[in-house]
Structure formats: C-alpha cells, structure tokens
C-alpha cells in the first residue's frame, strides 16, 4: 500500500470501518511510514473533536404538540392527502379509461360523419380578409389543402386536387408551403411561370437562373 492509498483509509480506520484485510494492509504500511502515522494521529484528533460535538438539541413541548396535531390531522384524512386516489382500484381505473376512449372515438367519428364532404370548401376566408395579397383569385382554392389542420377539416379535403395543383404539381411538393402560400413574396409570378420556363423568382429559382 502506498501513502496516497493509506491516507484515504485513515478515517475509516479510526472509525473502525475497515475490513480485517484492509486493516492489516494499512497496519503494515503504518509500521514503516512515519508520515502516515502522523496523518493517522491528526485524523483521529479531528474525528474525536467531531464526535464530541453536541448531537442533540432540546425539543420544546410546543414542537411535539404541533407534530402530534399534524399526525392526528393525517389520521382524520385517512392518512393520505389524496385519499380518493389509492382507493380506486386499478381494474376500475382501466375500465374507466377504456370507456372514455370508446366515447371519444364515437364522438370523433360522429363529427366526421356529419362534416360536409366533397370539393365545396371555404378556403381560409379569415386569412384572405387579413392579407391583401391573399385576395387574388388563385389563392383561396390553392390554400385549401394545407390551411386547415383540425380533424374535421382534414376529413373535408376534396379528393381531387385544385386545378392549380393538378396543373403544376411540382410547384406544390412541399406541403408546408401550401399552408403558407400567402406568405410567399412572389407567388403570382410562380403561378404565371410555365413548366418549361426558367424559374423567374424565389430564392432557389434566382440562384439557379443565375447559375
């Protein structure tokens, strides 16, 4: 055993917490190392002083009474602050959850069944009112597919794509773009661009045309 290791064992040795094998190894080291013997004496002095610190403080009767009052209050509550919770058995909770799931599914399917189907969809009227650029003739019908996200709106998406999308599907491959068409700065130019034309606007298009 080296001094560094021995020093780590000293406090445990003073506390009598070394196993016999560890204690024998430490003793062998100490027998030949005066420095570690001094460290042992210093550790023992410190630990004796710590052990002599007062361990107890007087407890007032008021503290005892306060604690007992809290205990009695717990008893009155049935010990648990959320007394209703553990008393519900696990099977009952599982049954309740299953029933809730069934009811939820029924509600959703009923709503979907009652929702209007077919292509007649009002495309984002509030966006059109707010954004002047969105008032153009082409935008409302294009914006339908991605503008509404609620289950009811998804259920009412027309089976056939809008004419603009059918005519130029490569312009609309990015679905998030459909949801934010009104934010596109050069949307009208994009629509006016033919399939064989070089891209006239847009960041990527500009780069490509320059390149």
């Amino acid at each position, binding site marked *: 055993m080296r001094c560094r290791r021995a020093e780590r064992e000293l406090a*445990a040795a003073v506390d009598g917490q070394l196993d016999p094998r560890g204690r024998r190894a430490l003793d062998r080291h100490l027998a030949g190392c005066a420095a570690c013997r001094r460290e042992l*004496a210093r550790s023992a*002095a410190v630990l004796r002083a710590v052990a002599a*610190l007062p361990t107890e403080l007087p407890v007032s009767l008021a503290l*005892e009474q306060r604690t007992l009052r809290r*205990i009695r209050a717990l008893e009155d509550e049935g010990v648990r602050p959320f007394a209703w919770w553990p008393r519900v058995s696990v099977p009952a909770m599982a049954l309740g959850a299953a029933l809730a799931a069934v009811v939820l599914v029924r509600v959703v399917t009923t709503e979907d069944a009652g929702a209007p189907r077919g292509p007649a969809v009002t495309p984002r009227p509030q966006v059109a009112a707010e954004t002047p650029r969105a008032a153009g003739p082409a935008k409302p019908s294009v914006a339908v597919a991605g503008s509404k996200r609620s289950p009811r709106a998804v259920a009412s998406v027309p089976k056939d794509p809008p004419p603009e999308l059918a005519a130029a599907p490569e312009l609309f491959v990015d679905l998030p773009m459909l949801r934010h068409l009104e934010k596109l700065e050069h949307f009208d130019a994009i629509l006016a661009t033919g399939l064989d034309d070089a891209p006239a606007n847009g960041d990527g298009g500009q780069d490509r045309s320059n390149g």
Partner: protein
Amino acid sequence: MAIATVGDAPSPDGTPADAAAPPSPGAAAAAADPDVALMLRVQAGEEAAFQELFRKFSPRVLGFTRRFVTSEARAEEVTQDVFVQIYRFRHRYQPESRLAAWVYKIATNHCLNELRRPERRLRVDIWGGRDKDGEAIEPQLADPQAATPEEGVSSRELARLLDTAVAALPPKQRAALLLSRVDGLAYKDVAAAMGCTEGAVKALIFRAVHTLKRELKDFVEEEEE
C-alpha cells in the same frame, strides 16, 4: 414531500396497506432491539408509541437538521416534517434494519432537499442564535476532554472553529461525517441513509476529514506536540 410509497399502496384485496397486520418477521428483531419493538407499536397505530418515538429521536433529529438549515425555527419545521413522514411511511420500515438508520435516512433526505431549494442556500450559522435571556449562544463540545489535548487548548474556541468548518463542508460530506461520527452509524447504515455505496461514504468522510484537518491545523498540530 414525496408521496407515492409501497406502504401507501392498497393491498390486492383492496384494503389499505395501513390496515394490514403488523409484520410478524419483526418479532425476533423486536425482542432484541427495543427500538424495533417501539416502531412495531407505531406501525400498529399506537399514538403513545409514536409520542415515545418522537421523544426519543427528535432531539437528535433536531440537532442533525440544525446543521443544514439557517435558523432554529426552520430546523423545527424540518424536524416536524421528518416525523410526519415517519408516521406516514411507518409501514415501510423493515424490522431487520436499525430504526435509527431509517429515521436518519428520512432526516437526511429532508435536509439535502432543503439545501436544494435555492432560497435555502445560505450559510448555516449555527451559533448565531441567542438564548431566552438574550445572551449569545456559545458552542461547546459535549465532552471537551475528548477533543482537547491535556496541554489546555480552549475547547470553546475549538468548538467554534469546528462548527464553522463543519457548516462549510459540502452537504453530502457534512451528512456523512455527522451521521458516522456524531450519530454513530456504521458506514453501511450511513450509505443506506444517503442512498449511496459504502465506498462513496468512505470517500465523502475522507474528503471531509481532509478539509477539517486543514481548517483546524493549529489545534491538530498542538495536540500532536
């Protein structure tokens, strides 16, 4: 306060665990250890037994918690919380383990949690208080002769230095040192109380002693001479 416990869970037949019969394996342990017998009575719902338990352990728990919080009033609150938790979780106690170790486990958790609260990260000044006559409370070693050498070192000064140094230790080192030395728990019990290994306890105590040797260098050197 942590809530979910095995002891609080309902038994398979739907009755609360609190209503279960006292654990019979503890009978032998109870016969050998009066603390266990006392705790079994508490588990059986005997209020007088809980009161007895409180009177037996609360001075030590208060002395322990006082070294982790900034005021005596807060130490009393934490002590109260500790005993409420002891009562709430009384059915988790296993008679095979030492009651003191179990009590200190709860107390240690409370103290370390207390220190994790940002507003509690203040220096512990254990001797900042005054007694009922308005006199400043002076630290005193329980047994000055045990700490001071025969040459006549001032035990009061040593106690003050030691208290300051112990209060400045990192919380886990402080807890390990106090539990092992002041409260006389074996490293195994300290490890159980702190939720770590015996090796970790040994390392914590080594570092604590290393720091204290440096802080109390003058006294330690004098004692050596």
